[in-house]
């Protein structure tokens, strides 16, 4: 892909939410649609047109990879959400795509064949997937950061094995989306943040972050490069500057960050060939007390103004997937509409 495409989008003044969830939940049968690729593609297209966005942004469902990995291991579907490994799984096993993953690929095919929109795929990052596979991922990460190895601590051995399995699952799924026609992939690492990695420990060394987050994400970046597919990297968690710098070294086409970051300051950490995206506090849009419409306008104006001052390519948007919250749909939509009007 041509990186200039994303820079041109930023220069055009594009504003866009990650808003497919909002549009999906306008449909009465929203629970069925993610299993039907053609209809899912239709919703993705509907969202792109509603928000006047040339990118066909997928539905952010970061549970698919865990489901695929565990179903392939023989775990019952009803147990998947709450299942955690307690022993290091040995051996290897095939990981077929699930019905929902097939639907995602069918949706991408629909977008690629039937529309002029850019087909975009999505996957959870290996570290974030690993955190869904064990009860307490934080302790072994901390122990490893203190120097413990897989030989020293069973928890560290378990974590490292699960990172391998996570990476395998994710790369299979991303490959399927690329084969279906995805031209960009949004790679989401929401768990690679200050909750799981102590900033105190990182002040001493980023070794554990590099081993557990960056090494595997670099492999995925190479996978995408080999397929001429662009990387859009997303992490909405609370981050250190060191984490942001490392994400920038992946050389993604776009970086999407959460509202705890000041994007005009992060611009100094990121090459101008990478577009910055975000980062309105959309997780709080349900609450007029926390974020009024006037506040949305103020924050939007501030972001646009400050990013122009620093001269970094920027697309105004949401800090994450804008979720439709029952009872607050109109409140949230009004605020999305408000930031889309910002100049």
């Amino acid at each position, binding site marked *: 892909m041509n990186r200039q495409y994303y820079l041109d989008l930023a220069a055009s003044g594009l504003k866009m939410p990650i808003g497919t969830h909002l549009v999906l939940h306008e449909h009465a049968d929203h629970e069925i649609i993610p299993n039907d690729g053609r209809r899912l593609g239709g919703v993705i297209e509907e969202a792109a047109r509603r928000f006047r966005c040339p990118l066909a942004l997928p539905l952010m469902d970061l549970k698919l990879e865990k489901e695929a990995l565990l179903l392939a291991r023989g775990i019952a579907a009803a147990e998947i*959400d*709450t299942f955690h490994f307690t022993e290091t799984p040995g051996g290897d096993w095939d990981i077929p795509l699930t019905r929902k993953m097939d639907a995602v690929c069918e949706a991408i095919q629909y977008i690629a064949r039937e529309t002029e929109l850019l087909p975009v795929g999505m996957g959870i990052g290996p570290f974030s997937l690993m955190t869904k596979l064990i009860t*307490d991922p*934080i*302790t072994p*990460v*901390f122990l490893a950061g203190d120097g413990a190895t897989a030989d020293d601590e069973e928890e560290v051995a378990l974590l490292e094995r699960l990172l391998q399995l996570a990476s395998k699952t994710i790369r299979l799924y991303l490959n399927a989306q690329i084969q279906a026609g995805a031209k960009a992939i949004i790679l989401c690492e929401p768990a690679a943040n*200050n*909750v*799981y*990695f*102590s*900033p*105190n*420990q990182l002040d001493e060394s980023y070794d554990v972050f590099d081993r557990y987050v960056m090494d595997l994400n670099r492999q995925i970046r190479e996978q995408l490069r080999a397929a001429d597919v662009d990387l859009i990297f997303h992490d909405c968690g609370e981050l250190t500057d060191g984490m942001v710098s490392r994400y920038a070294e992946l050389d993604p086409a776009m970086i999407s960050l959460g509202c705890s970051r000041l994007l005009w300051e992060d611009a100094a950490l990121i090459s101008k060939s990478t577009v910055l995206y975000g980062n309105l506090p959309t*997780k*709080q849009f*349900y*609450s007029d*007390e*926390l974020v009024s419409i006037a506040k949305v306008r103020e924050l939007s104006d501030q972001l646009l103004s400050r990013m122009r001052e620093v001269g970094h390519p920027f697309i105004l948007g949401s800090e994450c997937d804008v*979720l*439709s*919250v*029952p*009872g*607050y749909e109109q409140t949230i939509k009004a605020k999305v509409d408000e930031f889309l009007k910002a100049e």
Partner: protein
Amino acid sequence: MNDPHPLSAAIIAGKRKDVPELVQACIAAGESAQFIVENHLVPAMAIVGERFKNNEIFVPEMLIAARAMKEALKILEPMLVEAGVKPEFNAVIGTVEGDLHDIGKNLVAMMWKGANIDVIDLGVNVPPAKFVEAIRDNNARLVGLSALLTTTMPAMRETVKAIREAGLTPKIMIGGAPITHEYAAEIGADGYAADAGSAVDAAMALLKA
């Protein structure tokens, strides 16, 4: 400020493997299990909570401190049971229906235990009826509801409603990334904690009111 007791220091530093020997040393010195909990464990976790609130430490450090505390409780809890010593307060905690996130909930549970509150942890994706049952069965004085997603916040409202409609009157505290004081008031909860570090103070304020 005096240096903390060696057992407290080990808990604060998360030195789990040192804890059993230090607990045994306290017991050998004639300290009762209750004394050890109230004078070494509770103050240690209070320091941990304070340091977290002051951004001196973060979630990982809190977690390994709590793990070290649990190591002490493994030895002390049977002794407390045998002596008929019960915590003054008890609490039920869980992540509401539809939400699978548990880190925050687990941290709050650990901090409450560290404050000598007896905690019944219902886990994640807990339907309102299960909260009601646990409150009733345990005569719980305090309930903690956790949600990380805006989409599962309505389940908090339903849970509060179910508890009140069942005629139960524990203090209800809510928390989680999207949660606010205003939302707590809106749904009829009694209180709110911004994070695990402030969860003990918030709980005690409700329980002792």
